[in-house]
């Protein structure tokens, strides 16, 4: 099971970086970044997974729990992701108002 999730993580990250590099459309770029963020969140959780463990909420008689720390980190990361996404898209709206296009050609220019 864990390898399925590893596959999902790696593909989400790879597809995200592919999108960021190849696309010129700003909305697409930020969509790709949000996909990458999803991937990395999944990655942290997968690293905290312990086979046979259950959620670290201790009501009931369980013996093994998964690692709670990455879950707390991912909670943080998800909210950071959504707030950065909102700010980014608002900037895209501003950019569109000024230029009447979503194409952004200067990204690769160093």
């Amino acid at each position, binding site marked *: 099971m864990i390898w399925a999730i590893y596959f999902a993580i790696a593909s989400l990250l790879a597809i995200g970086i592919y999108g960021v590099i190849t696309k010129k459309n700003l909305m697409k770029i930020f969509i790709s970044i949000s996909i990458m963020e999803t991937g990395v969140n999944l990655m942290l959780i997968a690293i905290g997974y312990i086979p046979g463990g259950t959620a670290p909420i201790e009501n009931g008689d369980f013996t093994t729990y998964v690692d709670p720390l990455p879950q707390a980190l991912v909670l943080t990361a998800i909210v950071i992701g959504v707030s950065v996404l909102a700010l980014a898209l608002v900037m895209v709206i501003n950019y569109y108002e000024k230029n009447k296009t979503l194409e952004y050609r200067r*990204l690769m220019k160093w």
Partner: protein
Amino acid sequence: MVIHPVLLIAIPLLFAFLMPLLKRAKAVTIIILLFNTLLAILMFHNVYNNGPLYEIIAFSPPIGIYLYVDNIAALLAVMINLLAFINFLSVEKVEIKFAMLYLLAVASSTGIVITGDIFNMFVFFEIAAVSSYALVAWKRDKEALEGAIKYMVLGSIASVLMLVGIAFLYSEFRSLNIYDIMNRMDEGSVLILLSFAFLLTGIGVEAEIFPLNGWVPDAYQGAAGSIASLLSFGPSKAGIYAIARLLMIFSWQQSYDLALSVGIMTLLIGELAAFRQENVKRMLAYSSIGQMGLILISLSMLDSTDYAIIAFFFLLVSHAASKGALFLLSERKGFGSNASKYAGIVSVMSLIGMPPMAGFWGKWYIIMGAMQMEAWWIIAAIVFSSVVEAAYFARYLSTTMQEEEHASIIAAYPPAIMATLTLLLGILPFIYKIATIGGVING
């Protein structure tokens, strides 16, 4: 007297939250920055006399988070808060949102420097980055937006890569405390190497090192003068300090070599690119990149020579102060009043590395260190870059000296104060003493 470094972060956050209710944005911000500066100086005094300071938050580390303040962190905290205070004086029209974002950027840069936990550092990086995005776009014109968007794309990718690095690091050590990780670090497994690579890439975006600094010229060009100044002494300095800590965590020869080669590339490319620029802010931005390369070179010698740490101190402080002054001046066409002229000339001299200034001592000690290591090509690179720097700054001075533009006193004095700081730091043996007595970058 007990000093709580956490107040350096908590107070600005509290007042940033309260700003919409308080309304008097300018006065409140100035008071808080002043308070922070004083607190940081007090903290520095304490650390300088009594050794490193801890502040546990909620639970003792590594179960909880703690702040760890050693000499250099305290000095950086003083520097960031003091320069932020001076810089804020130059802003004439303060809106509430501007003040909020400014406070958050300052507080988070301080946080990056004094935190002792790697994920906490990531969170502060995010605050710094998000507030910088908004501040860069503050003018809302075409240039500002383009710069902000470029910064944002690279910054978001950087945050993802940093998280990947943290994930690998965590999977190896199952702890997030920097000191704990450093203690348990032995020969690098694949995961640790990968995590180093990802973390370096992630932080490198913020610290403006070579292949990742595409955003720098655009963002600095788009931002207003005071904001560009804030970026150059706030988040980016915190970022380079984070890289220093990273190098201390992963202290292998290979990582120092990597830092050295990246540093030299950054230095040369930055200075050469600055030479080609017409736009003043762009030129200053590229020059910043070059200086970051210089700082990185000094970091890469940490393991081999004692001069490195002194050079690091000098370069960091002098570059922050003088670049801050120049960015403030870049808002206007020419220097205008005498105070501005003085500020411009002193800052430029410090950046080039003229003898009495702090910048000179930075370069001097790097060269000393390189001579000790017998790495002549480092010296060659530094000398060459200084020549290039001298060339384009001469051109800069020759154009700006001629043009006169009347500036109000409020706009003229902050850069002059910053320049005076550079001058004083060069003349007084203050930094040298700190660096030789307690200059150990701890994790």
